[in-house]
């Protein structure tokens, strides 16, 4: 095989050059890369022919070609609304956050000591949401508004065991004033849990049997109702009430919390996040403090570090799926951290007065339009509104025609027309809107601007009087200079791929190339409303078509749904498709899903959400699925077997030889095989889910296909399915997508987070068939090189009979835990790596007391060597503790990470030197990263939950020094 040609994208994406590759092969002890692959992947599943993908494009060529495709999108002025509103991303945020790898390349902040920047920003997000909704606490973002509403429903379901006993039918009430896509997502989540949705006018819905109610404020029409009466009625009947709401509207409106809501959900998109044809955006869920431990997703909290200083961390991590598995209360894992950070920065930049001014301006545009259209004889039917008018009495057909000519999209509902205004609306826009109506009626109209103080078109009880965003952070950074410095001050506290390699096993932290990222903020892609007419989105349609086709080729499957917004959502979508398939065949009893004990925790959580019963199957001492146990359990449940969920290569980092037989056993017993695509980076071009015998898989586009992790989201988890499952791919209530017998929507937007699909599209187009396949080969090369270099220092837990690992491997740290009173554990190693400038690998997954390392193809030999040198040096530090030459408690490992403040302090009492603490190897001096806090006290944070920005003085006293 040839080395990557210099200057091609492949040569930029793949780390090792030809010379490095050959050195690495020698270290491993194989003659060629092909020989290594032959020793790694079982022959029975190898791809017979190269992938049939278009030729690789150069970076410049790709961007030129994409410009052409972008020009096939027509960006009309959108007044469609429905939860998506155009907005202005302040340039200082666009440049320094959205388009900045220091913000978009980090991982979820599990290693809190080197993630204090984005943790602070996410805490700002929680404070924004908490304040504006009037609730006690907020989570650190969810995938979209529909999902957030569904999570509120299932949270109430768990909190109401009397009214909604698990496994029995229960009732959830939904106002018909909710967005149609929200209701559809509720449908897909309610049905498998035996929750019956009753949709209608909330005043006439029967409450006696229900456990919860969802309202929307302002509602789907844009109308605003005063909610205390209905909420009181619901509470009296024993229901919990969730309210879907709009953060910008809440700067002017009485908050749902003040009206008694138990949870508030919504989308924060219009806080500076582009429309992106549906996403990614950060949704939110705010609730009562007493519900916090039932709340879905991640929550940022405050704790203290080893020196007693305040430090931020992800709170309540144990609720996550890797611990709770089938008892998990939600499968939410990937969130929308990057977008939540943009929304938080938008609030920091504008402050409460700025936000209110934006909201008032939006409202004034609506008021002016209402007056002008009233003068033309049209009727506006919303009694109270914030940004959305409902116009009746117009000739809809004529308006539609005139609007089309003027490049304007309204929302058309029967005989009425919806007009939603936003931050970008100008006086010229308003004039154009009025002209469209006037023209359709054959007259003329002009906007008349009211003089005098601002007045909200709503009864006074609906007007907001309570303060919000009183914390100093929302009052301190309103000039661009200050804002830029605030963003940078946070950024410097975090390790992303712009600092060093992040070898997180099962996360595939590969290059997120600039050429892949640049187009997502091109207006032709970023300013498209998700419900814009299809003829305006021809560019997007072409990208989706080509991407779906490529993903079909790569997986060997027949059809793809681009809708799921995360791997876990993909799992849920795939299982729901399997469920629909069994039901359509009259196979009503199939509700058992087999899951190997090594599976990722989201697997059992997703299965529970899909109403399936989880049966765990054993793994053998080599970490492989134990065939005997699998066969016995398949046999035992043969009439009820719905599916097997299996990760391939396994979560243990090995290509199991028996995979085809495993799939055959499941098929022979009437089940379907769901392949978790988390480890697809070891498959692309060399084997495929279809080749191993699976029926459906999801693809984590944020792992294998180069979407950045965003510091904890966004992500995308499209599913690919075999032909017989294609009819069940998810649909959408507003835009036609999915199969003939589509299951309801999984995401609020028809193509999920559409704009970031461009990243994966660019990845595939610029690498081509040979490039994506070489990416896989080099990922396997890099992993096996690491294994060879660390041989003799750490033991690899699992490898195949040739001694080869796939694209990742697990190193055992358990021997150090009880060796000679040393008690060094995986946390000590993880934190010590920070002193060397590295982010820890995945710790304690999938095996407690271990670390899992995945280098990816994008890291060069030089970086891999630095990482290995650090791990080998740490192994020496462990040995010193074990041998008694270093103190058992006061050593470099237990005290890691070391901050600059600590190392430069006048007093230094440790038995090792400052240099040993901070500059343990020569290379560290060249690129020193200083953790901003010492080791964080996790139990303290979980026992003393603080999940919003408190005034400095408020908690200074409560923290023991």
């Amino acid at each position, binding site marked *: 095989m040839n080395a990557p040609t210099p200057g091609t994208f492949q040569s930029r994406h793949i780390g090792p050059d030809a010379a490095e590759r050959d050195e690495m092969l020698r270290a491993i002890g194989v003659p060629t890369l092909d020989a290594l692959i032959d020793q790694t992947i079982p022959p029975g599943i190898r791809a017979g022919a190269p992938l049939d993908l278009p030729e690789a494009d150069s970076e410049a060529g790709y961007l030129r070609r994409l410009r052409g495709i972008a020009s096939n999108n027509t960006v009309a002025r959108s007044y469609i609304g429905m939860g998506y509103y155009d907005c202005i991303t302040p340039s200082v945020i666009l440049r320094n956050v959205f388009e900045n790898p220091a913000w978009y390349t980090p991982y979820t902040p599990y290693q809190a000591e080197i993630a204090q920047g984005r943790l602070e920003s996410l805490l700002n997000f929680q404070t924004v949401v908490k304040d504006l909704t009037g609730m006690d606490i907020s989570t650190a973002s969810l995938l979209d508004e529909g999902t957030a509403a569904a999570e509120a429903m299932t949270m109430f379901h768990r909190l109401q065991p009397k009214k909604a006993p698990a496994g029995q039918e229960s009732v959830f009430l939904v106002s018909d004033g909710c967005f149609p896509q929200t209701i559809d997502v509720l449908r897909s989540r309610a049905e498998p849990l035996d929750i019956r949705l009753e949709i209608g006018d909330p005043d006439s819905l029967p409450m006696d049997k229900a456990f919860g109610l969802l309202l929307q404020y302002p509602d789907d029409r844009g109308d605003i109702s005063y909610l205390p009466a209905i909420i009181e009625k619901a509470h009296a009947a024993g229901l919990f009430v969730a309210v879907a709401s709009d953060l910008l509207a809440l700067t002017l409106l009485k908050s749902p919390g003040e009206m008694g809501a138990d949870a508030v959900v919504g989308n924060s998109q219009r806080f500076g996040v582009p429309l992106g044809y549906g996403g990614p955006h950060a949704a939110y869920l705010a609730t009562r403090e007493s519900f916090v*431990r039932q709340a879905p997703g991640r929550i940022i909290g405050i704790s203290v570090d080893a020196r007693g200083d305040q430090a931020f961390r992800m709170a*309540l*991590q*144990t*609720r996550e799926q890797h*611990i*709770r598995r089938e*008892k998990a209360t939600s499968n939410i894992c990937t969130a929308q951290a990057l977008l939540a950070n943009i929304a938080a920065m938008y609030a920091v930049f504008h402050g409460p007065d700025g936000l209110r001014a934006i909201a008032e301006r939006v409202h004034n545009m609506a008021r002016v339009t209402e007056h002008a259209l009233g003068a033309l004889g049209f009727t506006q039917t919303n009694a109270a509104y914030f940004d959305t008018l409902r116009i009746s009495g117009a000739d809809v057909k004529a308006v539609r025609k005139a609007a089309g000519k003027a490049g304007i999209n309204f929302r058309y509902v029967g005989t009425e027309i919806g007009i939603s205004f936003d931050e970008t609306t100008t006086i010229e826009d308003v004039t154009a809107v009025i002209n469209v109506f006037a023209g359709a009626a054959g007259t003329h109209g002009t906007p008349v601007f009211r003089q005098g103080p601002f007045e909200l078109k709503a009864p006074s009880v609906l007007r907001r009087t309570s303060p919000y965003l009183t914390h100093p952070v929302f009052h301190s950074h309103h000039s661009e200079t200050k804002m830029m410095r605030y963003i940078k001050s946070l950024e410097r506290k975090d390790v992303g791929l712009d600092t060093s390699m992040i070898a997180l096993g099962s996360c595939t932290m590969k290059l997120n190339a600039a050429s892949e990222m640049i187009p997502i903020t091109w207006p032709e892609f970023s300013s498209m409303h998700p419900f814009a007419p299809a003829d305006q989105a021809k560019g997007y349609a072409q990208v989706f078509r080509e991407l779906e086709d490529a993903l079909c080729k790569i997986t060997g499957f027949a059809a793809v749904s681009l809708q799921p917004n995360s791997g876990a959502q993909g799992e849920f979508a795939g299982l729901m498709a399997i469920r629909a398939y069994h039901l359509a065949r009259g196979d009503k009893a199939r509700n058992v899903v087999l899951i190997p004990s090594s599976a990722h925790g989201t697997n059992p959580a997703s299965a529970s959400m899909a109403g399936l019963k989880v049966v765990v199957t054993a793994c053998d001492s080599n970490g492989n699925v134990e065939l005997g146990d699998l066969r016995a359990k398949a046999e035992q449940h043969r009439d009820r077997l719905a599916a097997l969920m299996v990760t391939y290569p396994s979560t243990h980092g090995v290509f199991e030889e028996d995979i085809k037989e495993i799939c055959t056993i499941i098929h022979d017993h009437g089940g379907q095989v769901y392949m978790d695509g988390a480890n697809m980076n070891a498959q692309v071009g060399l084997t495929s889910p279809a080749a191993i015998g699976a029926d459906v898989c999801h693809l984590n586009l944020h792992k294998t296909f180069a979407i950045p992790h965003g510091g904890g989201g966004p992500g995308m988890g499209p599913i690919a399915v075999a032909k017989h499952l294609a009819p069940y791919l998810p649909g959408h209530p507003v835009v036609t997508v999915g199969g003939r017998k589509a299951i309801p929507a999984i995401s609020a937007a028809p193509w999920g987070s559409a704009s970031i699909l461009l990243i994966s599209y660019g990845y595939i187009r610029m690498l081509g068939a040979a490039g994506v396949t070489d990416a896989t080969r080099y990922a396997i090369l890099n992993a096996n090189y690491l294994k060879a270099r660390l041989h003799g220092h750490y033991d690899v837990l699992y490898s195949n009979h040739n001694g080869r690992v796939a694209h990742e491997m697990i190193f055992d740290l358990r021997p150090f835990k009880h060796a000679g009173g040393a008690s060094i554990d995986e946390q000590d190693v993880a934190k010590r790596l920070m002193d060397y400038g590295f982010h820890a690998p995945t710790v304690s997954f999938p095996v407690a007391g271990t670390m899992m390392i995945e280098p990816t193809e994008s890291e060069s030999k030089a970086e891999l060597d630095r990482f290995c040198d650090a791990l080998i040096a740490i192994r020496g530090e462990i040995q010193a503790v074990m041998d008694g030459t270093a103190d058992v408690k006061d050593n470099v490992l237990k005290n890691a990470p070391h901050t600059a403040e600590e190392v430069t302090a006048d007093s230094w009492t440790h038995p090792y030197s400052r240099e040993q603490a901070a500059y343990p190897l020569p290379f560290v001096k060249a690129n020193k990263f200083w953790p901003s806090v010492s080791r964080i006290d*996790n*139990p303290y944070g*979980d*026992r003393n939950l603080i999940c919003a920005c408190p005034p400095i003085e408020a908690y200074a006293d409560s923290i023991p020094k």
Partner: protein
Amino acid sequence: MYPTDLKYTKDHEWVRVEGDNARVGITDYAQKQLGDVVYLELPEVGRTFNAGDVFGTIESVKAVSELYSPVTGEVVEVNSGIAQRPESVNTAPHDTWMIVIKVTNPADMNGLLDSTAYSDLTK
């Protein structure tokens, strides 16, 4: 060595028999397995459980586990103070009780382990 005045279950709960009542907590072995306890979810007074039913959950920084009722009966007392100091499960496991159950099926008591049998189980 485990206190001899307590009885034990295979699920690592301890039981202090007080007349008709059973006071319930988790053992030293259990707290060591869990690590730092940060939160407990306990039932309300008046709830009834069969032996082996889940009566609550215990959350540590490492795991969330379920708590199993060692006996059949009605909850007559709940240690509400535990919410303020969950760490006492770690520091004094055999003195930190969670609930008191009024036993309705005294035969359940016969199935409990004594200190020696439980010690053997955890070896």
